[in-house]
């Protein structure tokens, strides 16, 4: 096979549907008939998906990725799988780091004990006394030389629940920003939209033991919004401020009905173009939750169309949740 015929750039173009006709025919054939090419193509495709998830794609590739690559359900499934894989890899990495840390600590402990037990009785007693004195002085110093009061920091949101926004890096007032504390994403918080209205950050801005732990890799940033119920006529559009750097946006769509066993949601651009469609969704607490890549949304007007599926699998239009996005 002529490996000079293609490189990573050419294969990326092929995957994004931008190859020249002659290349398409050649690559189509090689993608099935040539093992080496098939492996290379798969590798480039994985890198492309990962680059998308890490926000590493250039503007042109990103646009083509969104318009072409994400148009297929199978390819979207690949992206979702890659996202799960990244989270799992980060989790695994954290566990490994933590295990290594514990193992090293435990080994160091044994080493100290070996040195201590190797000393004669008198020396051991003297060393123990010194140690007790040192601990005493340290405790005294801790309580007497650091009078800074420990305050609980709360960041209360002033937004209404319908415009609640939660990111995993809740902004703190400048005077209480910790220097070394890492606030990492708590994905469980994403499951409780109610909590979004009053995010709390605690305890203190002082460096804590937590801040000294091995740094937990950040999970993708998530902005969460609760949309208003669809209304007839032309009311004011709900403004949705997408924070810069948000990777995903989750929407909660309140429902007025519980007659349907499942729902399907599609996101439509102002132009009428359908940008995204959900799979079968189950309602939860009189609402639907959908999550999509933030990169799908520019500053524009969008609408979620919701279709309910009844017990006899008949679809029925529920309503349109329109909103306007602004990029912060």
């Amino acid at each position: 096979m002529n490996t000079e015929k293609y490189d990573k750039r050419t294969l990326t173009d092929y995957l994004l549907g931008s190859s020249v006709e002659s290349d398409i025919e050649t690559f189509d054939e090689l993608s099935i008939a040539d093992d080496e090419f098939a492996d290379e193509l798969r590798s480039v495709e994985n890198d492309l998906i990962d680059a998308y998830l890490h926000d590493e794609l250039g503007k042109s590739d990103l646009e083509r990725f969104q318009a072409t690559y994400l148009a297929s359900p199978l390819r979207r499934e690949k992206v979702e799988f890659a996202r799960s894989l990244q989270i799992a890899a980060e989790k695994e990495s954290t566990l490994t780091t933590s295990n290594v840390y514990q193992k090293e600590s435990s080994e160091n402990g044994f080493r100290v004990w070996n040195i201590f037990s190797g000393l004669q009785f008198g020396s051991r007693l003297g060393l123990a006394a010194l140690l007790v004195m040192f601990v005493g002085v340290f405790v005294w110093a801790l309580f007497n030389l650091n009078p800074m009061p420990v305050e609980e920091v709360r960041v209360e949101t002033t937004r209404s629940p319908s415009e609640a926004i939660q990111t995993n890096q809740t902004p703190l007032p400048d005077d209480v920003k910790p220097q070394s504390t890492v606030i990492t994403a708590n994905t469980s918080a994403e499951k409780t939209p109610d909590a979004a209205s009053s995010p709390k950050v605690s305890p203190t801005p002082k460096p804590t033991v937590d801040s000294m732990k091995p740094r937990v890799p950040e999970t993708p940033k998530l902005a969460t919004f609760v949309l208003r119920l669809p209304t007839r006529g032309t009311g004011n559009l709900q403004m949705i401020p997408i924070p810069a750097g948000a990777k995903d946006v989750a929407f909660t769509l309140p429902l007025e009905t519980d007659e349907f066993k499942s729902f399907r949601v599609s996101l439509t651009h102002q132009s009428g173009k359908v940008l995204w469609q959900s799979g079968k969704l189950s309602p939860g607490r009189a609402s639907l939750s959908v999550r999509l890549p933030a990169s799908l949304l520019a500053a524009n007007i969008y609408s979620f169309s919701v279709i309910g599926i009844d017990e006899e699998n008949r679809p029925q239009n529920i309503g349109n949740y329109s909103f306007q996005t602004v990029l912060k």
Partner: protein
Amino acid sequence: MGKQRPKKDWIMEPESFERFLRWLDREVGSDGERYIEIRRRLVSYFDRKNCRTPEDLADETLNRVARRLEEEGRIDVETPEKYCYITAKFVFLESLRSKEKQNVAIDPAIENKLISEVTGDENENEIRFECLEKCADKLEVSNREIIFRYYYGEERIKIENRRMLAQKFELSVNALSIRACRIREKLRGCVKKCVDDGSN
């Protein structure tokens, strides 16, 4: 040789399937791995062509090849993969023609249903993650380490991680990439099956 049946009613018997697997394997037993790999490539091919049912078309392609093999006893072609590609091209062109017919009077409700399952549902994401953990537990220890370390980190961290991983497993960076890709494909297949089983 099997009895002649109308083409559309042809069903692959176990013996035909065995023969087909051996032909794909070029008589070297791969325990069906080669079949799975070719099918995967075909699915991706039809998907890149924006076919709505790439899996069905891949199965149709493989069915036709197997039937031809059964009817003729042999297929004189450069490689089985190449013949699969030629057949896939025909299947694709036929699908285009049938799509044109379908497009005449397609019901929007059916249209909506035809669009295959997509993700974005929180529950589904959770199920997928659980499935991923289950499937990863089934991997060999070395494969598990490769898949998680290979895809961990961004930019420089990722590159450094991969270099160290290649060193550890005494592989070139390219060989490591191919191995990681294969593990990823296998894992994705397992996760997809697990998610489908869970949602049915």
